[in-house]
């Protein structure tokens, strides 16, 4: 990530040098204001403009790369664009319905399984209770003498 700072620094230096080259003939006085531009002034001025433009482009590109690198490393969070709301159409509705069905179907299957297990348990309990009652009833059906002998 440090490498981008050297690129940005180089672009800033180029920008400042370009600005200085554009202003130096007037600042230093070897180009009087209002007079026709001499060769040194033209060379200095146009080179300065070129350097300024190139440095600005370089600065923007290095800065964008630096921001991208910081996003990749998690230093900056990526902005999540909000999804545009879809217009309601029958196609969209059917897509939505199938999505809902896909979500609900496993839940329904689980519920049915639970209900079946509960019914089986109730039936087993009922049949066990029925056997016990039958067993007790059959005891009372036996002649009294046998019952007294058991007790």
């Amino acid at each position, binding site marked *: *990530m*440090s*490498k981008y700072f*050297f*690129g940005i*620094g*180089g*672009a800033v*230096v*180029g920008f400042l*040098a*370009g600005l*200085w*080259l554009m202003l*130096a*003939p007037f600042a*230093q*006085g*070897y180009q009087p204001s209002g007079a026709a531009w*001499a*060769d*040194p*002034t033209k*060379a*200095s001025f146009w*080179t300065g403009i*070129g*350097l300024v433009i*190139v*440095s600005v*482009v*370089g600065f923007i*590109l*290095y800065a*964008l*790369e630096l921001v991208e690198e910081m996003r990749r490393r998690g230093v900056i969070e990526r902005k999540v664009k909000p999804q545009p709301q879809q217009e309601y159409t029958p196609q969209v509705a059917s897509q939505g319905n199938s999505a809902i069905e896909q979500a609900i179907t496993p839940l329904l299957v689980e519920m049915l399984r639970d209900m079946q297990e509960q019914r089986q348990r109730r039936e087993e309990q009922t049949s066990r209770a029925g056997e016990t009652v039958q067993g007790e009833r059959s005891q009372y059906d036996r002649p009294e003498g046998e019952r007294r002998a058991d007790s």
Partner: protein
Amino acid sequence: MGGRLRVGLATTILTLVGGMWVFFAPFVVGYQKVGAHWTEATRTQMWTGGVLTVLSMLALLFFAVFAIRDAALAAERRRRQETESSEVG
């Protein structure tokens, strides 16, 4: 290296070339005769061009140094991950 970074590096190289041009422009364009007393314009341009050339070269040099360092660290990390995954597997 992405396209953006390449163009960014190209601008730094252009700045270096621009600095060299500014340094030699008085003699190339012809408004400073060789051997004659240097004018104010020549002195300004040679100093500006010289400083710009040196700083651009340093920027490129340090960019290369840190780019190589980042590449070496990334390769080391990848090798460590491969070793760990082969040990687990």
